[in-house]
């Protein structure tokens, strides 16, 4: 991207214009996220900067919205619901998704594209359609308005992410390693647990993180399949924005951003570790 020494004036001008355009687009991407941090400390119950805030006057800032979040029983119940639902749906989707990925990545697998297409469909079908279908179907089964209903729904929505991530890990999988183990007399089970599992673990964990965040972030399906007892954080935010906007929502948003930064870092570290391990196994 560096400008060559022989660049003409026109090229120089274009180069810097291009960089300026990129800075503006990056600004568009990131400013809405960053703006939430200071606004969540606003002493006034508005979604904007007050003159005191701009003057950096400490009186313009407060942490009371965070206090409200941590002391409100509605929010705390939403946190508990979100975590319970996300954990159980992650467990289900990770277990089933990893098994399926192991099967799908075998060369011998018949009708691979068609089955892969069906398994991935929960990710592609618009959420409102999944939500509508699940609402009708789960009401018939008596699962509408139960934790189990929401957990099953989220597990279905999250499983494609696990399948895709683990399959991607297995693409680079060196099958001569398992063959070597077999030729040295290891049983298939032993080979699986001693060779395959350690190699795919990073992929499985990042798949699980994807699944977790899918469930944790999901709101459309939970709105329809769940009832007030399954109210999750995104649901509480959704109705909060609709009914009475208070900066508590921005405080929650800030906490969620920090949470997603942590998850993002974890996934990135796993990806690097996975690449390193693949580099080792290929050598």
């Amino acid at each position, binding site marked *: *991207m560096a400008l060559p020494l022989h660049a003409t004036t026109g090229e120089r001008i274009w180069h810097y214009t*291009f960089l300026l355009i*990129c800075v503006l687009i*990056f600004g*568009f*991407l*990131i400013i*809405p996220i960053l*703006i*939430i941090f200071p*606004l969540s400390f606003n002493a006034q119950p508005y*979604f*904007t*900067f007050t003159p005191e805030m701009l003057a950096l006057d400490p009186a313009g800032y407060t942490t009371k919205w965070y206090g409200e979040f941590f002391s409100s029983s509605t929010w705390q119940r939403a946190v508990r619901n979100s975590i319970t639902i996300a954990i159980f749906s992650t467990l*289900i989707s990770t277990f*089933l998704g990893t098994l*399926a990925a192991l*099967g799908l990545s*075998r060369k*011998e*697998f*018949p009708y691979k*594209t068609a089955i*892969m*297409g*069906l398994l991935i469909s*929960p990710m*592609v*079908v*618009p*959420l*409102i*359609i*999944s*939500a*509508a*279908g*699940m*609402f*009708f*179907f789960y009401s018939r089964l008596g699962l509408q308005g139960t934790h189990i209903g929401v957990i099953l*729904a989220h597990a*279905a*929505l999250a499983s494609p992410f696990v399948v*895709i*991530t683990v399959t991607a890990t297995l693409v680079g999988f060196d099958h001569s390693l398992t063959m070597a183990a077999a030729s040295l007399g290891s049983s298939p089970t032993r080979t699986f647990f001693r060779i395959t599992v350690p190699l795919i673990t990073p992929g499985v964990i990042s798949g699980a993180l994807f699944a977790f965040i899918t469930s944790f972030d999901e709101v*459309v399906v939970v709105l329809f399949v769940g009832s007030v007892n399954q109210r999750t954080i995104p649901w509480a*935010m*959704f109705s909060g*924005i*609709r009914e009475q906007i208070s900066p508590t*929502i921005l405080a929650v*948003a800030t906490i969620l*951003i920090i949470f*997603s*930064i942590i*998850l*993002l870092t974890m*996934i990135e570290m796993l*990806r690097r570790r996975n690449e390193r391990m693949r580099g080792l196994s290929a050598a």
Partner: protein
Amino acid sequence: MAKKMSQSNTSSEPLKTADGVSLKVSLNRALRRRKITALLLVTPLFLFILLTFLGPIFDMLLRSVDNKIIVQVLPKTVSQLAVWDASTGELPDEAVFKAFVEDAKIAAENKTISRVGKRLNYEKSGMSSLFRKTGRKLKKFDPDKLEISYTDLVLGYDKKWAKHETWWLIQRESGKYTSSYYYAAVDAQIGVDGVQRKPDDQRIYMKLLKRTMWLSSLITLLTIVLGYPIAYLLATLKTRTSNLLMILVLLPFWTSLLVRTSAWIALLQREGVVNDFLVTLGFIGDDGRLAMIHNQVGTVVAMTHILLPFMILPLFSVMKTISPTYVRAARSMGATSFTAFRRVYFPNTVAGIGAGGILVFILAIGYYITPALVGGTSGTLLSNFIAYHISTSLNWGLAAALGTILLMVVLVLYILYDKIVGIDNMKLG
């Protein structure tokens, strides 16, 4: 054993394994076993998806044509009406009215009659109240004290029973399945003399579908325009710098949808950050604050922001594979940097634009949350109406029909995506 071995080596007999089974058979058997293991590994997830996801989708498809209620609640009426020739323009005969009174009296007692009324009300307004009123009167009716004909009895309950159209409607909707929800979903209605388009002011859904398509296309175009330079920059920078800048793309990608939507509300509302900023700078007066939210502008801006990473990531992975030597070669042969870009670099990225474009379009067309929060009335999409019919108007058949239409559009795009990128090549983050 030894004899067998030597035989197989010398003669033209097929090769055999130590157990004396032909090698071909044995290999085939091993292959079949591996196939079965592979299938067994996929089966649990497949069944799970079938039950928790594909079943519900199928249920929705069924519900969009389901019409059991009338034949269930008014079975005798339906079978009597089957022989009535509606084209004569005359009311049905006494037998139909008798059957109707019998059916409706039972239905009024089990309180199912209002459901028929509700069902028919989707086709013609006023039906709901007609059936409720008739049900109330029939409850008190005692067949033994009947002195007039059944026809006169029913006609006396409400003028609407004397209308040919009422009976024609019951006859039309007496099948187990109906296509009327789909007609409603494309703003058509079935009249006595065939299918017609609804009057102009009642055509909502086609307009809505058009708006959904148009806004989704606009958002897709905007993400291409904004995403292309960023992907290009990230793909051509040194890995260390580009990894760092990638965080600016991935952080919004990983941030909760509702967080980003509330951020845009904070930015765009009347008393919001952008308006305050513009007023402070003097671009607009305090009374001239721009309306950027609860309308189409809000929907487009917020959704472009939310979907932009979905464009940048596939574009970036395509651009990463384009060797810089291509452009250098073009330049060395005398192409200006613009020509080299237009004739060499850009054609190589078209697949990425296609992949990202379809992905963003598929996501945009089914968006619900963001338009519901920042779209107002002019910025709502088809999804919002599906949600409205599920939870507010309770016209589930119409919701299912609209959902099915949306699903078909998405499926076509999905197949297109598979043709361009391949589902197997889908990558995340």
